[in-house]
């Protein structure tokens, strides 16, 4: 007689923002194997980038790969094209790019934290964090003109300058967010009922994180020191006070703490940028057509994002290849699920912060 039961999760489920299907094979409460299907959102963006759009429009198309890390996608593509065109952008434009990149990281991490709490059954915390997240959305709207899809970065600089009133508003709101985040830090470390759902659940050891190619906050929570912001010299992250955040436990709680620490670090970076924003133009006109190959890496909120762009000297590109963070982490996801209770599966899944529209493109 067969002793296991199969439980499907998805493709439409209350705890999922996006269509993904997991097939859990369970023995009583324990998950013994997991099968995932991530291809529901495949739209064919890579193909359209080489056949439908010209190279100067693709920055706005690849932003629609993912709404949560839209800025990282358009920034990576733009950086690759700027490498091929061989121009140098101004320092002010670079600083404004980092500013929006870090604001995006703050709101993405807050969404992930609130979603993890909701899936663990703590609805009040979900509402609190989502309410405070609006402070960040407000300043993003002031800075770029839109709440989610910013279309802020173009080839050669950024699209909007920052005024002193907006800068002041950003500083005020970020101060408020910082106080709230310090409050969550207390809640996540000391709340007894949250600790039952989060501590020692869904643990990933350092060896497994290294062996299974985990990246982003998932790897940093296990103690692996990887962060692309530490490795690239394209944007001056070290000048604005970037510090890598790691944790040693590797469970859901560790991931939450890493995300909270990264939010605090990002807020510090934004404050440093605004206090020392260089003068100058925000846009440099770059001439010519892309010719040759370029590879660019950036740290999206979920981990390393890689762009490969190949041009042939005309307006249409030969190839655009996008390697997204969630795709690289899928082996680690499947490994973590094995041996856990099925009841914890939604919370574990939310703590990965998966982005399926990135993965399937």
């Amino acid at each position, binding site marked *: 007689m067969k002793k296991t039961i199969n439980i499907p999760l998805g*493709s*439409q*489920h*209350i*705890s999922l*923002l*996006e*269509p993904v299907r997991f097939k859990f094979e369970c023995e009583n409460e324990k998950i013994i194997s997991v099968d995932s299907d991530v*291809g*529901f*959102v*495949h*739209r*064919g*963006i890579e*193909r*359209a980038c080489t056949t*439908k759009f010209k190279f100067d429009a693709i920055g*706005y*198309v690849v932003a*629609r*790969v*993912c*709404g*949560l890390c*839209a800025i990282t996608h358009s920034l990576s593509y733009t950086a690759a094209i700027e490498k091929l065109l061989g121009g140098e952008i101004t320092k002010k434009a670079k600083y404004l790019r980092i500013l929006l990149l870090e604001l995006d990281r703050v709101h993405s991490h807050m*969404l992930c934290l609130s979603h993890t709490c909701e899936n663990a059954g703590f609805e009040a915390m*979900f*509402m609190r964090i*989502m*309410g405070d*997240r*609006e402070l960040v*959305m407000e300043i993003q709207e002031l800075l770029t003109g*839109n*709440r*989610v*899809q910013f279309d802020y970065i173009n080839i050669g600089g950024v699209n909007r300058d920052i005024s002193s009133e907006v800068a002041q508003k950003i500083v005020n709101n970020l101060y408020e967010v910082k106080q709230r985040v310090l409050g969550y830090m207390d809640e996540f470390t000391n709340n007894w009922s949250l600790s039952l759902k989060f501590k020692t659940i869904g643990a990933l050891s350092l060896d497994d994180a290294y062996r299974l190619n985990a990246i982003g906050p998932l790897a940093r929570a296990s103690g692996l020191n990887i962060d692309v912001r530490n490795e690239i010299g394209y944007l001056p992250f070290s000048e604005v006070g970037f510090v890598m955040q790691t944790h040693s436990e590797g469970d859901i709680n560790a991931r939450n703490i890493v995300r909270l620490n990264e939010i605090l670090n990002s807020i510090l970076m934004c404050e440093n940028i605004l206090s020392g924003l260089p003068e100058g133009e925000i846009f440099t006109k770059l001439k010519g057509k892309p010719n040759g190959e370029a590879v660019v890496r950036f740290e999206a909120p979920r981990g390393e994002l890689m762009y490969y762009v190949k041009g042939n000297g005309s307006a249409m590109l030969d190839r655009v290849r996008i390697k997204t963070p969630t795709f690289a982490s899928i082996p680690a996801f499947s490994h973590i699920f094995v041996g856990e209770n099925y009841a914890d599966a939604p919370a574990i899944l939310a703590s990965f912060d998966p*982005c399926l*529209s990135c993965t399937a493109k």
Partner: protein
Amino acid sequence: MFDLKKYRKKSPWILHYNAGSCNGCDIEILASLSPKYDLERFGVINTGNPKQSDIFLVTGPVTYRSRERLVELYTQMPEPKVVIAVGSCTCTGGVFRDMYNVEDGIDRYIPVDVYIAGCAASPELIIDGIVKALEILEQKSKEMEKPHKLFREATSEGGIVNRRHSALKVGEIDEEN
């Protein structure tokens, strides 16, 4: 006894399905349910079960693999139901139009009652759309209560106009114009 029709208007439940969007509209739907915009003051709650839902919120341009699930979810919802297309790409295909795995909008597959434009649709627009959908839901509930008598005389005033008659009438007006 409970008057279900009355409570349906006071507390419509939402079913949300992502048919291949970029998450932008999905997080705006979450934001509109959260304290600042507070859609829940209309009695709206987000459920995962199609069989208990009244309003169907769809985001995304309908990819090749999600279309069967989209139609399946729609057919599982009980009448009366309202479909809202959230975001430009859900209405027309948007930036994804003519990509090889995309079906250019949901109205190829299911009837849509409210279209919400914008990339991404802002929470204010989503609230407007849902308030509009509540009116349509009430109208549809009333429509369902009326007894259907097909082939009734069209001349009776205030009576029910059957579907065939109303369809002909629309066609006549179009011919005149």
